[in-house]
């Protein structure tokens, strides 16, 4: 059955590879990814536990075209489509494509390189082995394999040893189409060498008159003692489905921090996987999902403690209203000799009305015996006492509800580690609330 749907995607991937302008080792990795995608097909709810709550078959049946121009290149229109997320030092990517001039015009400090794969594959052959070849060989998520086979412009960001990016680097992915259903495969590779520091924001936005699918993959290599702050802010158009895969690999003493913020889209599925590969590595995976209308948001996280003395923190929050659906599956895996692991997971949800659906599941796989691992989940409603208190001071009911909802959500935003960003995100959230 599924092969009926994959054919179109396979053809598109073949064409993308033929025009990729990449050297042989890239081509063979991508051919392998395509082969494996073909063999797996799209995930089916009944056969694949990890996709139990999300049915992608109606989505992938759509005749998406991978060669559709984004409706506009006008800067003010883009600004509007980005809903406040087109921040300083931003690279604009439209439907998975980026012009070389745009990349070159970014003024980046010494020791920081940002390039398109098609322009610089040979220079990055060392990391592409892990980022593409091994990925193609080992990744099990069909969407991520499809991205690997079919992306147009992969971006590579490298931060050299000891270099600290003082300003956040922002990549804004626009997805959208004027008429025909369109698919984009944004791909970002971030490689931070030893003791470097960077904040990378990926914003996913767009305006569309037709159904769209954004199928993004980001891989982040965190070197020894490096610190990476990675924001994934998704506010896609209402007709756009968003599937993302983020893999982070953290070496000894490295710190990876991700904030995954979902505000838009129709069907949204995020896969976030962090591998703590070196001792004393740590990660913070925070998430905030604002779900309304008939949105369906499915967040799957996996933190893998592979060696001793790793720390992980996780705070996932969700606000669900109307007929929204929110899924959280948080896997924590602790390898047999990963002793002294300290893992904390918290999932808190706020339901704004009846008729919403929440599925929250911790998935602990612990094979070491000397570990600390705590998890908790809550589902609640807005506090009636608080609501009355605000209203008794003259604040209207809708505003009072928004205020309390914002307060609930800000815990995640305030933890993003960068004050300016927290403020921007806080405003973004207010914008979201006022739109409702």
């Amino acid at each position, binding site marked *: 059955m599924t092969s009926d749907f994959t054919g179109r995607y396979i053809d598109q991937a073949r064409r993308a590879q033929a025009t990729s302008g990449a050297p042989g080792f890239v081509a063979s990795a991508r051919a392998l990814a395509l082969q494996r995608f073909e063999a797996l097909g799209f995930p089916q709810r009944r056969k694949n536990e990890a996709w139990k709550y999300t049915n992608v078959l109606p989505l992938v049946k759509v005749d998406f075209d991978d060669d559709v121009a984004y409706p506009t290149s006008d800067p003010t229109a883009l600004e509007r489509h980005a809903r406040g997320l087109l921040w300083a030092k931003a690279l604009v990517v439209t439907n998975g494509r980026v012009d070389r001039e745009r990349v070159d015009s970014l003024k980046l400090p010494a020791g920081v390189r940002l390039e398109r794969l098609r322009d610089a594959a040979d220079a990055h052959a060392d990391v592409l082995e892990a980022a593409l070849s091994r990925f193609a060989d080992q990744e099990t998520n069909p969407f991520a394999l499809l991205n690997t086979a079919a992306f147009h412009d992969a971006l590579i960001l490298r931060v050299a040893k000891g270099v600290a990016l003082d300003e956040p680097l922002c990549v804004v992915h626009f997805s959208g189409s004027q008429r025909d259903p369109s698919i984009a495969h944004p791909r970002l590779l971030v490689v931070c060498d030893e003791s470097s520091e960077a904040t990378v924001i990926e914003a996913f936005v767009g305006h569309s008159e037709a159904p769209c699918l954004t199928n993004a993959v980001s891989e982040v290599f965190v070197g020894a003692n490096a610190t990476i702050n990675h924001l994934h802010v998704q506010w896609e158009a209402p007709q756009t489905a968003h599937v993302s895969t983020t893999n982070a690999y953290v070496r000894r003493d490295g710190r990876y921090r991700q904030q995954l913020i979902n505000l838009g889209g129709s069907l949204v599925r995020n896969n976030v996987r962090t591998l703590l590969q070196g001792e004393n590595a740590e990660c913070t995976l925070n998430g905030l999902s604002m779900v309304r209308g008939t949105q369906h948001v499915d967040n799957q996280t996996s933190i893998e403690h592979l060696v001793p003395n790793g720390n992980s923190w996780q705070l996932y929050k969700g606000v669900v209203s109307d007929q929204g659906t929110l899924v959280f599956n948080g896997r924590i895996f602790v390898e047999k000799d990963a002793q002294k692991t300290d893992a904390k997971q918290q999932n808190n949800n706020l339901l704004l009305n009846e008729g919403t659906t929440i599925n929250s599941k911790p998935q602990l796989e612990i094979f070491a015996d000397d570990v600390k691992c705590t998890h908790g989940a809550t589902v609640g409603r807005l506090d009636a006492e608080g609501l009355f208190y605000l209203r008794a001071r*003259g604040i209207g009911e809708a505003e009072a509800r928004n205020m309390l909802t914002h307060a609930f959500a800000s815990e995640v935003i305030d933890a993003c580690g960068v004050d300016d960003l927290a403020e921007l995100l806080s405003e973004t959230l207010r914008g979201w609330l006022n739109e409702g």
Partner: protein
Amino acid sequence: MLEIKDLHVEVDGKPILRGLSLSVKAGEVHAIMGPNGSGKSTLAHVLAGRDGYQVTAGSIRYQGHDLLELAPEDRAREGLFLAFQYPVEIPGVSNMYFLKAALNAKRVHRGETEVDAFEFLKIARDRAKVLEIDDSMLKRALNEGFSGGEKKRNEIFQMLMLDPLLAILDETDSGLDIDALQVVSRGVNTLRSPENAVIVITHYQRLLNHIVPDFTHVLYNGRIVKSGDKGLALELEERGYGWVEQEFAA
């Protein structure tokens, strides 16, 4: 300003207020005293518009409105203010953000322009001084982790910011030491004017040394059973509530 007539209120079918009448005119301060459980907070909550109370008979008119028809926020915008007996902690909302929203809601309601952050801060600093409140309290989350005294002080601070026509203080004095009591009283006395009215709900007489009432009422078993001047408060202080209970036991 406020005219309560024969008010009957139930909670979950249980009668709490049973025929309460009270008339408050501009410029007056009324004290309502009564033993625990007599219905003082119930009256305050019904006036402020809290859910969960069924008014089964009677009426409340406020400034020409049928008060019971107004949403809580509209009552507040029309100048009614309740200082809560138990102020609510609201993590994640800063005191300042909250108060600015409240002040602007009222201003918009009255057809005035909103104040910006700068103007707001000026007013807030000015009022905070009266109550010896530190600036840092403005930045903190609303009542979160505040001590009992800080919460009460914050209620009075909000009152001064919103400049109500009718202020209802529900046991604002309980849990305050003598210094705090004086500061809070000063705040309330700042508000007193021929245009405003205050209802001071209290269990003890001592607050009334600082905020001297024009009238004192004894609330017992859901009814005002005795009204008098400030002398009545002293009498209650001396004799306790026992005699009220004996005299008016249902």
